[in-house]
């Protein structure tokens, strides 16, 4: 799965991941391979990326929106810490 994490100031992350956990407005959820297309707004909280090798990366975002479509994830974050 390809994921891009973009803020208005820069592209924070662009690469392959095995899974992503994001802080959705209605609760945190995980996106795995072949997830159904979804658009969801996000609360502030941690985004947990798991790389294909199984390494976890955590990013704190201050809200945003995520789009998942055909194994391509785009996460528009307001800001990333």
């Amino acid at each position, binding site marked *: 799965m390809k994921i*891009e994490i*973009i*803020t*208005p*100031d*820069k*592209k924070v992350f662009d690469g392959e991941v095995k899974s992503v956990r994001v802080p*959705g*407005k*209605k609760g945190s959820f995980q996106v795995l391979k072949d997830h*159904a*297309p*979804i*658009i*969801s*707004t996000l609360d502030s909280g941690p985004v947990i990326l798991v790389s294909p090798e199984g390494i976890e990366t955590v990013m704190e975002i201050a809200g945003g*929106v995520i*789009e998942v*479509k055909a194994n391509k994830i*785009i996460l*528009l974050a*307001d*800001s990333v810490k």
Partner: protein
Amino acid sequence: MANLKAIRIRIASVKSTKQITSAMKMVSAAKLRKAQDKIVKLRPYANKLQEMLAGLSQSLADSNVENVYGRVSATEKVLIIVITSNRGLCGAFNSNVIKEAKRVISEKYYDQYHSGNLSLLTIGKHGFDHFRKLKMKMLPERNSLLNDLTFDNVAFLAQQVMDSFTAKDFDRVELVYNQFKNAAVQNLTSELFLPVTAISDGKIKAVPVDYIYEPGKEEIIQELIPKSLMIHFYKAVLDSFVAEHGARMTAMHKATDNATSMIKELTLLYNKARQATITNQILEVVSGAEALNG
């Protein structure tokens, strides 16, 4: 014939001015590139956001989404946001914006201006100083914004403007700024910031996909509209910032060119004067010798 020493001093002074202007040109060129980078980095975010909004507004075509930023009412209270620069030496950059702002006021908001319902928000010292002298109704200036231009800072101000719009402090908010075209050309722009009637600008068409929307279409759109407004505001400030450096670069380039041609003229004048003195001296010697011989 002009004094040799005076010309020499003049040449030296023009030369040092030329050094300064060409250094400033280089600095502006570097800053221009950096600022342009910011716009390029903003683009993927802005495009994606527009795409999502387009998709959402397509699928929501029939239902009425409550849009607090789309309140259209009689134009009683107007806010004009004028974006200038903090520093000078950038040609007609600032005076153009100020002129445009005055034109907008006199053509579109004359009545509001006379009834005292027109306020100005200036970003940039030059606009602030100018309009303060005219005793216009001003909101506190935001000049420091340009010293540290990040999305967070601009979004904070945009949020305040949007809040005052929803609180009915203003019925219309208009932006006046220089849009960057290239280093030499700025497009003077005045555009409506609030209210927004069209949710998406229609430039980017979304491919219809059956998405799951969480929490729901309306909620998402209500969150995306302020975001897209902030992006709009940020883009305007960035555009003006890039245009400022472009304008300064061009102005400094012209100044350097002028200094070069001035040095050339002065050197010619200097050489002529020098030649004339030498000729005079030789003439004196020769005529002295002649007198002795005769």
